[in-house]
């Protein structure tokens, strides 16, 4: 596990106000393949800003960023979209499932913008749904699922594109503590299998389960605990 999946060099993000907000101050950060990092900090400290930059959902106002071996500074929006779709899997606090589509259809959205044929996407989706234990709910609509099940669908979708890194912004924010425990256990077992995970949370108990911890305060990121074996 020596090749870095994520390399930030002096990456900063300032929202041009007025007044300008230094949401992320110049930051150096490396995430190795196989890492499981928790990003912890109070509300408004810049955790989502950092994660959006890591996921190419937003562009830094300074510094350089290499994702999955690819420098991103000079990429066009279309190239950024391509890299994002192939290299990053997202898990959001609010799940972001399409309410009118079945579980299978939702998961099969992964790879849609990677020119994957539908048959391949459906096959991968079924495989991922099986991994998160939702095969019995394959044809269900998201509205009929519990919160924990919905997040598992979202995780299956994030994995279905076979990304280099999983970025999770408060994945347990809408779940009770028992469901949250389940999700973190899922992450732990996935990480043990080799997945690289970056998880934003403000729940100390969950953060303790990660192998590495990054604290964010007022846009400053610092390594609170280096990766443990």
């Amino acid at each position: 596990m020596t090749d870095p999946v994520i390399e930030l060099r002096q990456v900063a993000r300032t929202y041009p106000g007025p007044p300008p907000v230094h949401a992320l101050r110049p930051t150096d950060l490396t995430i190795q393949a196989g890492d499981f990092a928790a990003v912890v900090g109070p509300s408004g400290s810049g955790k989502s800003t950092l994660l959006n930059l890591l996921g190419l959902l937003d562009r830094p106002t300074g510094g350089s960023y290499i994702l999955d071996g690819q420098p991103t500074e000079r990429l066009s929006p279309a190239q950024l979209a391509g890299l994002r779709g192939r290299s990053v899997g997202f898990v959001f606090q609010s799940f972001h499932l399409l309410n009118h589509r079945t579980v299978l259809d939702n998961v099969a959205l992964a790879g849609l913008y990677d020119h994957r044929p539908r048959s391949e996407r459906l096959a991968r989706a079924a495989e991922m749904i099986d991994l998160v234990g939702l095969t019995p709910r394959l044809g269900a609509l998201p509205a009929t699922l519990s919160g924990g099940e919905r997040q598992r669908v979202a995780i299956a979708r994030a994995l279905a594109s076979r990304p280099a890194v999983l970025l999770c912004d408060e994945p347990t924010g809408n779940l009770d503590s028992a469901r949250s425990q389940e999700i973190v256990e899922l992450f732990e077992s996935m990480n043990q299998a080799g997945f690289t995970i970056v998880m934003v949370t403000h729940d100390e108990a969950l953060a303790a389960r990660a192998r590495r911890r990054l604290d964010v305060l007022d846009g400053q990121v610092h390594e609170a605990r280096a990766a443990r074996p």
Partner: protein
Amino acid sequence: MKWPNLKWPRPQWLHRHQPAGAAPSRVRSRDQLREAVASIACRPVRSLLTITGTVLGCAAFVAILGLTDTARGQITSRFNELEATTVTVVDANAQANQADRTIYSFPDDVGARLRPLNGVVDAGVYFSLYVARPALTPGQSGDRATIANRPQSDGLGSATGASLTVWGTEGGALAAAGASLASGVWFDDFHLLTDQPVAVLGPAAAASLGVATVRTNPTVFVGDDSYTVIGLLADCGALPELGNAVMLPAPLARQRYGNPTNPAHALIRTDLGAARLIARQAPYALDQSHPENLSAVPPPDWSMVTDDVNASLNGLLLGLAAVALIIGCVAIANTTLVAVMERAGEIGLRQALGAKPVHIMVQFLTESVILGLLGGVLGSAVGVAAVIVGAVARQWTPVLDPWLLLLAPAAGLVVGALAGLYPAWRASRLPPATALQRL
């Protein structure tokens, strides 16, 4: 509680060696279409409401144009326009008393009296005459007078046409009949009212008298009377009996040769739709004190769909249909714009999954185009149904231009494309991080 699959297999793809690279994302157009259709299909009621305006607009177009075609088809098959604008007036008094040759009920200026009536294009009287040879010897009296291109007094009668007939006419009758001139002019009010000794020849008469043009100042002789030929007909229009006629100004002809052998007729050409009114007015215009002496025959009754009033009404209805289409366009634009705001989360998700701006734009544009097309197709169906019901109710044969069935859905498609352009562009401009924050 434990996960069913807590023991994860180590994913194969983690072993890949080449990085993902920076190739722009691509989507299969078939998948893009499927996404758009799925988005519409999962909101059926809203989709239907959205396209109502487009449906109405397209239906109105098809119905109006189809019903007009259908009505026009009826008119051309059963009832031609010439017939619809012809009024014939008969000397009823003379008809009732065939034996009495002293009866003649038309005035001397039929055309001049009828033309001022609103709706009359042209009019004139026409009648056939029997011209008797002057009685040289008692036995010969009653013979028909010779008609020739040379005087008869020299006894060398030549080029006589036994089949030629003499008619009294007004120029207006020829114009009303749709006759055309090969050469010269036909009688005007000057010739009629000042008793000019002039003649117009039917095509057969001109041929048998050897008159090819009026430029040589030809003269024809009816008995001993000479007439300058001022016009030659090329075609007799609605009065084919004038083909072998030597036509003389009606008042002069009656003066010289007496009343017609058969009851006189007047022919009136009217504007489309005016015929029945003119038929009622004509007897009074011709003889205010004894209108009953003249009987006018109007064309058969038919509610004219193509007359001027209906044509402008048609224009108005088509205008309304266009307004409905514009409203339909605005409705689709509005719904799509609202949907863009409402579906910001979905847009953000698609971007997170690798959609580039143009993919988002194409998705929304495709949705609005499909909505418009759907509206056009549904509208055509409704319009066709309206045409069939409208036609069958009047026992007409429905007539529909097949192009209309293609044109209406195409119009819907254009409406949808126009409506979707701006919302789709707006959707493609949403920054992914912002879009994902909205739900």
